[in-house]
């Protein structure tokens, strides 16, 4: 096995480009999944099965099917319906939607963990429904679930390479392109493999620190 440091240094500019795209996907995808997950979680609490049933089926379906095929679906089917986005936008929507079905569960657990007394107090104070949610329940629920949401951000990081399949040039896409142009597979693939381990390890350390601060 021979290791070529020249290939590494030649690959590095492409690596930084790829890293930037990966982080962009991660940030935008997280924002979509946080917002959409909350919407799903709130819809699941609407007291009629005409809402909860369809939302439950759709989210269950999205959660139990591969993200890769969902990305293909969005990438190839949306243009047939005359909706065209760039590959990056499609990917961000796809990954955000997929992860929203996970964050939804997190929010649900957080909402259920708010003590009943808080609900009763809100009723006793005659707060309208909107204020009960916005001022009493959600601030407590969301605070509780921040660490769990962070875990899903780390998971999402590890799913960003899937966007390569729909032509987005993130880290893995850049590595593959470089490999094919230079016939050097070992170095770029190993560099990004290590990069993933380092980033997710640092992120998990940061998350643990955040968790400790939220507890105290």
């Amino acid at each position, binding site marked *: 096995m021979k290791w070529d440091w020249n290939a590494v240094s030649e690959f590095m500019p492409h690596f930084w480009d790829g890293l930037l795209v990966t982080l962009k996907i991660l940030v935008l995808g997280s924002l979509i999944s946080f917002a959409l997950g909350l919407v799903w979680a709130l819809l699941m609490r609407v007291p009629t099965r005409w809402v909860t049933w369809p939302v439950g089926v759709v989210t269950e379906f999205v959660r139990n099917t591969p993200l890769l*095929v969902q990305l293909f679906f969005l990438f190839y089917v949306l243009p047939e319906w005359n909706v065209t986005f760039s590959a990056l936008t499609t990917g961000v929507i796809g990954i955000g939607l997929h992860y929203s079905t996970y964050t939804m569960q997190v929010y649900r657990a957080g909402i259920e963990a708010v003590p009943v007394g808080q609900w009763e107090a809100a009723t006793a104070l005659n707060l309208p429904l909107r204020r009960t949610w916005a001022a009493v329940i959600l601030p407590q629920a969301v605070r509780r679930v921040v660490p769990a949401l962070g875990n899903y951000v780390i998971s999402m990081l590890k799913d960003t390479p899937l966007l390569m399949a729909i032509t987005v040039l993130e880290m893995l896409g850049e590595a593959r392109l470089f490999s094919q142009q230079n016939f050097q597979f*070992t170095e770029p693939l190993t560099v990004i493999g290590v990069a993933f381990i380092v980033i997710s390890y640092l992120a998990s350390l940061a998350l643990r620190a955040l968790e400790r601060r939220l507890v105290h």
Partner: protein
Amino acid sequence: MTSGLWELVLQGVWVTIQLLVLGALLATAVSFVVGVARTHRLWIVRFLAGFYTEVFRGTSALVMIFWVFFVLPPAFGWQLVPLWAGTLALGLTYGAYGAEIVRGALVAVDPAQKEGGIALSFTPWQRMRLILLPQAVPEMIPPFSNLLVELLKGTALVSIMGMGDLAFSGNLVRLALQESAEIYTYILLIYFVIAFLLTRVMRGLEKKLKAGVGKSAPRRETVTPEPAGIGGAR
């Protein structure tokens, strides 16, 4: 869709199921070996097992698949058949997640059980086999069930390497028909049905195993599922 194209899809289903079964077997073996090693009394064994889980959980499954397909062959001078390369990459990655499940379930067994084993002068191996595992394994089933669905979703990744699994057959049909809404809907539905069957089977297994140690299965599943790239800080 013509019957020829359906045949293509069926072949894809077969490859996906093969990958799923082989990957699940390897992942189960890895998770028990590494998970038990993480509770070992020697720190070096615990450290190596912990290092393995951190590395394989830290990296992306798709990057691992690329690595097994492109870096292993020139580095070691041998090339794996695609099916085995896919099995290896998936089994090692998901095995690392499974190891955490095994470790968690072993740690959660009441310490008095272990002490009882020591008092009766069982060897460590007997304690593990006769006391800890029979109580821990039923608790592992719900998280393993989620992991199995994640593995099923992970098998789609090998299609990027050109292996003819279900997702790949979808691409072939799309190219043949120049039309994608219908075929991708079918493909997603097939994946969903497989995942649904898997969770049913695992629920039955849980009931059976829990009855074996005198517990009843919970009526409602309360486990939160974990996504494909399942998180580092757990």
